[in-house]
């Protein structure tokens, strides 16, 4: 499969992107210390989160290139993972808090192709929603990418990896990965908002509790739904595409 072989230019590109991220993110964040809506995050934070995302997306680009190289079935599976996230992030579901939110759908791809591959797919979905649906935003693209396309997939992948080590059944590992990936995305969103808008009285913590109340509680039942839907699709893929899952170490 040649998964280990580095593509020409990868090292340089990843290094350059890390440099840009560090260079842009830290001064900007130091200037003051589901998706965030367009214009609802102060500019310094937009730049900081955006810069932090760059290395992950660059890494993801090369990771995808390597994994699908010369294998049309892998490409098909990747397209299905992207499409799954596309469908799920279009479904605004009602929740116990009396408001609606949508799942992220990035857990499936994170389990199959690894978290950084989902960073690329997540950016594409967020761009689509920001430009055509007035959902999320271009100025908040960096912050939203960090929560949905980086933090969520990495959490999902970590949970999957851990449960696999503990020899949990595949369906349970996939469910837990998708559940945690979804929930963690919105926890990060709440933290991002709390950091940018600390409560005048209670500071960061008081703010975080307020935003968690809005985002995280709403998200819990949705995360369960996402977990179940991810298991449905995963089991289907497992039935028809076992050799690929074994090659991806996601069997």
């Amino acid at each position: 499969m040649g998964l280990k072989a580095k593509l020409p230019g990868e090292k340089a590109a990843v290094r350059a992107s890390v440099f840009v991220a560090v260079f842009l993110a830290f001064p900007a964040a130091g200037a003051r210390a589901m998706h965030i809506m367009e214009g609802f995050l102060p500019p310094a934070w937009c730049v900081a989160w955006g810069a932090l995302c760059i290395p992950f997306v660059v890494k993801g680009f090369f990771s995808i290139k390597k994994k699908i190289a010369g294998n049309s079935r892998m490409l098909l599976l990747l397209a299905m993972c992207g499409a799954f996230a596309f469908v799920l992030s279009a479904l605004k579901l009602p929740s116990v808090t009396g408001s609606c939110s949508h799942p992220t759908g990035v857990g499936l791809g994170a389990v199959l192709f690894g978290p950084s591959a989902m960073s690329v797919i997540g950016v594409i979905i967020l761009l689509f929603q920001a430009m055509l649906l007035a959902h999320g935003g271009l100025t908040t693209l960096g912050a939203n990418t960090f929560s949905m396309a980086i933090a969520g997939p990495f959490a999902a992948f970590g949970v999957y990896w851990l449960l696999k080590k503990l020899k949990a059944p595949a369906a349970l590992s996939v469910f837990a990965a998708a559940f945690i990936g979804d929930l963690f995305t919105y926890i990060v969103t709440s933290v991002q908002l709390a950091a940018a808008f600390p409560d005048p009285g209670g500071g960061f913590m008081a703010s975080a509790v307020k935003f968690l109340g809005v985002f995280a509680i709403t998200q819990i039942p949705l995360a369960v739904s996402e977990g179940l839907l991810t298991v449905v699709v995963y089991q289907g893929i497992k039935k028809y595409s076992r050799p690929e899952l074994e090659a991806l170490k996601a069997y």
Partner: protein
Amino acid sequence: MKLWQKNLILLALVAAISVIPLVFVKGEYGGADDKAETVITEIDESYTPWASSPYEPASGEIESLLFALQAAIGAGIIGFGFGRLSAKSKAGEKN
């Protein structure tokens, strides 16, 4: 139990999880992001959004059209994928 039977049960569970709040919890069922806007303005009354979306759907109908389109494109690709995967695994092809 066959795979399709298991999956049917899981899908029914998803439907139940979505319907239960609608039946038992009274709410406006607006978006959680709109609620977050309210929290932001509570914390910092002077904050005004400094950018607006490049394109706002002309109405709720147009917005739902675009969301339906997004879901339909995704579902189409997944269906196509499963079709190819199952056909290929039946034919015993290996790439």
